[in-house]
């Protein structure tokens, strides 16, 4: 009995030790730091709920939260539609389909800095091909994209969607291949149109995949950081400032690690809360 237990522990210990050291301990420390005033050096001074009360009156925090929700609300449906569309397109037996699947996946594994540099040049208001194209099709005043406070977030959402659609396309492709072909054949025999087959066979058949994709996209959208940091650095002004960048700014640029930890907890609570709701809704649907 003891031998078995020891053997079991010896197998999970390396992984658990790594998890405890690199994830669990920092997370516990983060929760503690959120209630302190700490500038990384010296002792953290306990301030109770002061950081959370400060957040309430901090206009920049609310701007960052609004922008994060803005990004999430548009990024999730756009990425789902684009990735599902790509998956449907590339789920056929076409010549060179593997090549096109690889091409669609490439943005996901490309360096984020390279993506930002290239897309910034594409979006350049005066010399970029995007505005040149818009001008050619008769749009007189094309947007300033990343240099305009009104258009910077749509620009980031477009690039975010383009970057992630290949990855979620792969998940949808895997999901599509689990749907029995007999269902489509039966529907076709019953006279179902392609749209009816999509709505009544494909969508229900992808329910588990769609749920997984929605959860992952929600968490990923709320935590968006690198793309915005290298593409717009939160600007112009605060037009693309999101919560994770605000945490970075307060922590690593202004050395307010206590306050940054408190904002991190709010971000964690939002992600956790929405994920729990998604699981509850999914459970109810399943039952």
């Amino acid at each position, binding site marked *: 009995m003891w031998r078995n237990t020891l053997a079991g522990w010896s197998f999970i210990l390396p992984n658990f030790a790594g998890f405890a050291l690199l994830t669990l301990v920092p997370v516990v420390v983060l929760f503690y730091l959120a209630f302190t005033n700490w500038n990384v*050096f010296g002792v953290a001074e306990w301030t109770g709920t002061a950081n959370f009360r400060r957040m309430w009156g901090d*206009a*920049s925090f609310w701007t960052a939260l609004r922008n994060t929700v803005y990004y999430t609300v548009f990024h999730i449906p756009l990425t789902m539609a684009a990735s599902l569309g790509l998956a449907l397109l590339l789920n056929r037996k076409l010549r060179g389909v593997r090549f096109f699947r690889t091409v669609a996946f490439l943005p996901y594994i490309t360096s984020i800095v390279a993506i930002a540099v290239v897309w910034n040049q594409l979006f350049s208001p005066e*010399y970029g091909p995007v505005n040149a194209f818009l001008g050619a099709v008769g749009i007189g005043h094309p947007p300033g994209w*990343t*240099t*305009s406070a009104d258009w910077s977030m749509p620009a980031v959402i477009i690039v975010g969607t383009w970057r992630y659609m290949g990855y979620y396309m792969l998940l949808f492709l895997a999901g599509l291949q689990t749907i029995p072909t007999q269902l489509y054949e039966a529907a076709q025999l019953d006279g179902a149109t392609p749209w009816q087959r999509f709505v009544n066979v494909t969508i229900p058949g992808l329910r588990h995949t769609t749920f997984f994709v929605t959860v992952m996209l929600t968490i990923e959208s709320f935590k968006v950081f690198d793309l915005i940091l290298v593409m717009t650095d939160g*600007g*112009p002004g605060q037009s693309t400032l999101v919560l994770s960048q605000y945490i970075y700014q307060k922590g690593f640029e202004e050395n307010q690690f206590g306050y940054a930890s408190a904002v991190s907890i709010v971000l964690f609570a939002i992600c956790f809360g929405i994920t729990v709701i998604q699981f509850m809704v999914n459970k109810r649907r399943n039952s």
Partner: protein
Amino acid sequence: MKRAIPAVIGAATALTLVLAGCGGEDEPADPNAPVTITLAGWSLSSTPEFKTLADGFMATHPNVTVELKEYDAANYDTQMTADLAAGTAPDVYVLKNLKNFYTYQSGGQLLDVSDTAKDLGSVPALAPYQVDGKAYAVPYRQDSWVLFYNKELFGKAKVAPPDGSWTWDDYTAAAKQLTTGLRAAGSKATGAYQHIFQSTVQGFALAQTPNADLLSGDFGYLRPYYERSLELQAVGAQPTFGTAKTNKLTYQAQFGKQQAAMMPMGTWYVAALLNQRKSGDADRFEWGIAPAPQFDTSTTGTAATPVTFGDPTGMGINPRIGKSKVAAAKAFLGYVAGQDAGKALAGIGITPAQVTDAVTAALFGLDGVPQDDLSKFAYATHTIKPENPVSKHTAGVQNVLDETHSVILSNSKGVEAALNEAQNRAKNEVIKQ
């Protein structure tokens, strides 16, 4: 089993105490004993100043070895903060940005080096590193912002070059004339290039405007400086902020490849331009340095002292340094802020903390540096005000102003509205905290 846990904790604590005791290095220091001190630097292959300082010091202190430890230039302060907090930082480290000095000093991460500072005598750039009468670092570099100009493009545009008497209105008028003249001559170069840094507008406004105070949260002093910059963009006398940002324009290429006739920039650019001319990354052309344009005529002309800005770059000592190394580290600090190191730095195109006649002669003795009197005057004569006054609020206020800079120059918001918003945010989100 329950008894074993306290025993293990006890043993671990005892071991920790023993190990901590081992690292104390309490033995008395022998001044001639061989000693190695570590020094933090960044991008060592392309930033020769650290090796120059280390070699210069070791030549006169044969018992001391200065070992360089490389950091990433862009993330220097983040990495240094992490290393200091973890207790793995080098013995001597560079204070790359003055705005982070407060964090290091108030966090107890700098040794008191008042005795070394006292031996240096009068060094103007020392003041920012002094707190309650004690010095916590010494400056070894003190760049200042000047106006670089391309003599050949001025000639091509048939515009009179700067003579040291320019206010910002004169500069704006010249930039427009240059652009028109260059276009007429078939050149695509613009009259001016102000890089996307907030410093190119805000640094001058803060330094030159009477009674301007970054930490007051009153930013009205920025208005005329932004209005002039917007005017230059609007008439095409300099690339727009959007173009510079989206196309990742570099100031080195804009001036070095003759895309702009004038460029306000720090004196560190002298060394960069010389190196780029050697490597072929910059064209060979006649260039000069003029004093930065002034707020009004009271500080213009070579009989007056122009006002500009620039933060010193300093060095301090990690308090965790072994006691036997402190004397060597302080001697090194005394060397880097002194005249011998100044001449050595000027010899590689870098502006040291103390600009003396010998330093000016060393810099202007370099191949490719202009020889005219105005350039020498601009390099050696000025009042330098700090861009980042030392305070716990500086980093926060500068972040607010950086966002304001992008929102104004991208024409996303009017100057008045953007400055009002910046004032409210600085007061409520930073200064009151």
